[in-house]
């Protein structure tokens, strides 16, 4: 059912504007939560590819260089 249909049904059923406003606010917050995941996914992917994978295969000195290099590129 489309949002328009659901709104119409809600209005017919006597749901108050206050309820609808509250639900829209909740939905907006939930949409933003979903969008926020993009930045988090990118951060974690960057970490895995740039830091964790090379870390697993380096010696101590190289690891330190890698960490310092990663930080300087932030």
């Amino acid at each position, binding site marked *: 059912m489309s949002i328009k249909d659901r709104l119409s049904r809600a209005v017919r059923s006597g749901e108050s504007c206050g309820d609808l406003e509250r639900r829209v606010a909740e939905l907006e917050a939930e949409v933003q939560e979903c969008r926020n995941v993009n930045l988090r996914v990118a951060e974690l992917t960057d970490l895995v590819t740039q830091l964790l994978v090379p870390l697993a295969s380096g010696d101590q000195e190289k690891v*330190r260089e890698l960490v310092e290099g990663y*930080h300087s590129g*932030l």
Partner: protein
Amino acid sequence: MPVTDVRVDDEGIRACSTREVILDVCFDGRRIWSFWLHRDGLAREGGHLVSWPESLRAFLDGTTRLSLNEHGSETAVYDEEVRLGTAERRIAVVDKQGNPLALDKDNRRVKTFAGRSAEHVAPLMDAIDEVIRALGKVGIEGFLAYGTLLGAVRGGRLIGHDSDADLGYVSRHSEPADVVLESFRIQRDLTALGYRTTRYSGGAFKILVTESDGSLRGLDVFGGFMRDGHLHLMGEIRAPFQREWMFPLGTATLEGREFPVPADTDRFLSVTYGPSWRVPDPAYKFETPRSTTRRLSGWFRGIRTSRKEWDRAYAVGSFDRGGGPSDLVRWIADQEPDLGSFVDIGCGRGRDVAAMAQRHGVPALGLDVHERSFRRQESQHAENTKMLFWTFNLLERRHHAAVAAYTGLALPARRVLSARHLVDSIAVDGEPSARLAELGAALAQGGSGRLYVEFLTAWGDDGYPERLRLLRAVDPEEVESALRAAGARILSREPVSISAGTGSSVTCRIVADWPSTGPSTGGEAQA
């Protein structure tokens, strides 16, 4: 209601307005400074007093024709010959070479384009050229955007009141996460080429370029992408757009030089500034649709909460200078006889870091989002290998990971972490308590250290919060519950009165650790 009862003196500018207004301050017809009357002013005599910014005071000795315009309006609400200080000369806000200066939005002195000859703007043109070439080297087709493009297309000149140059690029990706990842890669590649950069969001950053006249200039690089038939460009654009209106890039002339621009500049500027972009109209205000702001913010933003306030604080060289180490760090030293290393999260001027490295001889790492905050301490102690300062953004998980990795390699247990006036310096939207708790879990896991947190709980009238530019009083429950959620054990919590008598500000000190046999810390905190 208009702006009324304007008075100008050595203290600042007083004015009355029932609604919030942005006022542009002009000296002898040239804009020098803009401020928000209510936001930046103190309530005084039925109106508001906005003090002269520290960055401007050095110039304020002489006479000038001072006019005040509501931003976007050509009608002056005040226009008088005024005398500030005692000198007879005309006030000239210029640098040593005579270049006109103005204050930017963070009250920093910047060279503006107004009144600059082609010779004066040549260094900036060189910088734009250099950055576009650098972007090309890392596989990105940069172009002029926003005000810089508008100036080029309208008349081939920079727009006078601007002080920065804006560049854009359009990614080949369409998923926001991929666009962010690409932006990280571009920044890293530019760093490898020797550029200094600072990140604004997941999709935009600034490149700092040393101009050919030796001054440092920031060029903003806004990432963009196509998605669902719309062009998205960081900043404020989301509009129906076709890829062929963007590529292949064309060229336009700016200050006598050719630069890449979107293929269809008319359509591009229409979605940037509205269809009337050709005609300069100071009253026209392009409002970014709420849906655009929500999308761009949801996908890319959230890593610079409260940064503006701290940009302003550290724009003043004298802010938080002098004095010795904090009472907190003295107390920590008493509590921790077996201290192995010290990490100051939000170290500010870095006095506590220096105290720990010098007096206690332990490796000490200072972390602050503002490089300039600890620069003096860092250079004064450049020979001390136990003392290190890193720029660090509490709101970026990649920074957490870099610090956690470095700490594991270089800072021996027992690690003592200090976060003094950190969670009360970032607005609640940034969730600083949760981010601090995650960082604490990563740095002090398995019983390897302790976290000492101090923050304001009662905003007194002793001037303490104002002096430190704290943003809010924090409920100790906010911090405790965030720490517990990240697996911490609360060892103590106590209030500290800052000054004697009633009206004292009160802080809270919480000590926490992450015992090795304690509750789960949540793996993501230790990424």
